[in-house]
């Protein structure tokens, strides 16, 4: 009984809070949002405590038995991600109370974030392919509005690209869903998984899976379908970009891993090779794009693309080691990237610019911010003993095990370039002398909420590095469940 309640809470709490505060003033909305996010965090933590032992459990909504009704499933993978997303959203929201301009906060900003979080939680927990589509639409709709709040020219232009590409992705998704339903007669992921392993991969089925992977690829911004991301993520306030980088593209990768491992028990080698190539190209193009940028938010947006490549690499290896790396990387990159976006948010608010050529010498005004940025940037680049080092080490070990040496070369050289551009951010913003031509204003005192959130996320990066072992063990358990599938099928369908 408690399990039935806890599994629904991460969706219900933010959604209900959004509904009840939507007509209130933004001060009330802000309070309700922080309370609801705390509730979401508690619910996710409880959920994680239940699945941490390796248990997988499911709820059949409205008591319709699977595969006829809608199933929600929690396993180690989804539990771990929910907790990490919840912590990040909480801190980013705290930051946004100070960093997002009042006039944008007034436009139902907080209810929209809650709806976004509800959509993400739904997409993570659902065990039904069509329901996954519905949650994707929920979170996309919230994100469309969040992206264009304020309606500046650049925002609308970025938003248009974002909407167009995501609608195309949704069309691919639906086509794939239709093909699968036509050939198997079910959309329950567990039931699909059982049927797919029993039958040979015939043409419509492989086409359906490819369409699904393609649509998740667009949503996750992999090469060559990433164009919408750097075009749109730098336009909203930095806190919104932090939220998007931690939630939106990550849900795309999550669905790719979840649906990919369930529907393709033994993927054809051409597919994994293609995925490895896509992963390598995503890393390389992303980081090359980032190296060329001098504006902080644009630079970080390109890095999102580059890091997605590592996640896809871990998935494409299709081994326990690879998925362990991907899952640990997932948590690490969400935290580190959100921390860096929050640093950019602080620059946006206090210096009124995020253009690196206009900044310099900021460590004197903001030593804590410099330290937080350093932890986030070096963590992302993968310097030991920070979290990125262990994430990349695990992925490198997995690539060597799989003898995918080209991917190994790509991963390591992209790492070098990441280090380069992270050094660039830190050195340009904090270290170099302030350019004489600079138009940046002298910084005002940083609001406490903003400082707490930025430093909080940066310290989580440090903690992830310090306690890499237990997190990696949880990630390994999640990876084993993903590849083994038996616990998942049993939880949903019952029986042996």
């Amino acid at each position, binding site marked *: *009984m408690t399990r*039935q*309640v806890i599994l*629904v809470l991460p969706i*219900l709490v933010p*959604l*209900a809070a959004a*509904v*009840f505060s*939507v*007509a209130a003033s933004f001060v009330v909305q802000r309070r309700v949002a922080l309370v609801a996010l705390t509730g979401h965090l508690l619910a996710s933590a409880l959920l994680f405590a239940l699945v941490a032992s390796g248990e997988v459990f499911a*709820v*059949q*909504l*409205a*008591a319709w038995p699977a595969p006829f009704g809608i199933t929600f499933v929690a396993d180690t993978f989804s539990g771990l991600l929910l907790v990490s997303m919840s912590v990040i959203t909480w801190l980013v929201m705290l930051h946004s109370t100070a960093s997002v301009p009042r006039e944008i906060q007034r436009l139902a900003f907080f209810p929209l974030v809650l709806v976004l979080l509800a959509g993400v939680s739904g997409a993570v927990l659902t065990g039904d392919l069509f329901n996954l589509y519905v949650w994707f639409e929920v979170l996309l709709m919230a994100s469309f509005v969040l992206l264009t709040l304020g309606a500046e020219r650049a925002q609308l232009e970025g938003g248009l690209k974002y909407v167009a590409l995501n609608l195309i992705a949704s069309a691919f998704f639906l086509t794939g869903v239709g093909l699968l339903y036509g050939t198997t007669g079910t959309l329950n992921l567990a039931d699909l998984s059982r049927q797919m392993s029993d039958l040979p991969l015939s043409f419509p089925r492989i086409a359906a899976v490819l369409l699904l992977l393609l649509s998740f690829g667009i949503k996750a911004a992999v090469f060559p379908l990433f164009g919408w991301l750097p075009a749109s993520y730098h336009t909203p306030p930095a806190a919104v970009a932090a939220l998007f980088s931690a939630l939106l593209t990550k849900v795309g990768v999550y669905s790719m891993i979840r649906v990919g491992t369930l529907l393709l028990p033994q993927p054809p080698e051409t597919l994994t090779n293609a995925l490895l190539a896509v992963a390598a190209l995503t890393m390389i193009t992303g980081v090359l794009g980032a190296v060329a940028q001098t504006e902080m938010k644009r630079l970080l947006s390109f890095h999102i693309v580059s890091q997605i490549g590592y996640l896809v690499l871990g998935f494409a290896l299709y081994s326990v080691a690879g998925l362990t790396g991907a899952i640990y990387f997932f948590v690490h990159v969400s935290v580190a990237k959100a921390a860096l976006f929050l640093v950019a948010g602080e620059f946006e608010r206090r210096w009124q610019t995020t253009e690196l050529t206009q900044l310099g010498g900021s460590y004197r005004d903001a030593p804590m911010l410099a330290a937080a940025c350093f932890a986030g940037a070096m963590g992302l680049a993968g310097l030991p003993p920070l979290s990125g080092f262990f994430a990349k080490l695990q992925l490198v070990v997995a690539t060597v095990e799989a003898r995918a040496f080209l991917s190994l070369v790509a991963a390591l050289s992209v790492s070098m370039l990441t280090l380069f551009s992270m050094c660039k951010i830190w050195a340009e913003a904090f270290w170099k002398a302030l350019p004489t031509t600079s138009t940046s204003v002298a910084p005002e005192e940083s609001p406490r909420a903003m400082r707490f959130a930025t430093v909080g996320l940066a310290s989580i990066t440090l903690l992830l590095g310090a306690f890499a072992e237990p997190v990696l063990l949880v990630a390994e358990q999640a990876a084993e469940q993903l590849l083994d599938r038996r616990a998942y099928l049993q939880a949903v369908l019952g029986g042996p």
Partner: protein
Amino acid sequence: MRSLILLTASRLLFPLLLLFSAFLLFRGHNAPGGGFVGGLVAAAAVALHALAHGINATQRMVVVTPLKLVAAGLGCALGSGLFGWFSQQPYLTGVWVSLPLLGKAGTPVLFDVGVYLLVVGMVTHVLFLLWEE
């Protein structure tokens, strides 16, 4: 532009349409119909009123803001799922009670009413926004 025909027709049709929308809402329980189509019919009634009497009169008539209707509808639908928990069932499970005269009443009706309010609110909201353009 005031048209006498439209005014008279709307005075007759407005209550009829609302009645019909309620009929569709409750018919949807076991037969084609339901909250969505019922809500659309009710919103059509509001649109007709706006056509005949002008948007200002309609806005005065619809006392609650459409956004609140949307919120109330969503809250109603979300809340209807909670009853399942009280009878040790998963979220959204239908719970039924026998009432004198009415027969059996259950939480799915509450869910449908939520959909109804949501659709009325949403369409009216869009209608008011477009009218202002």
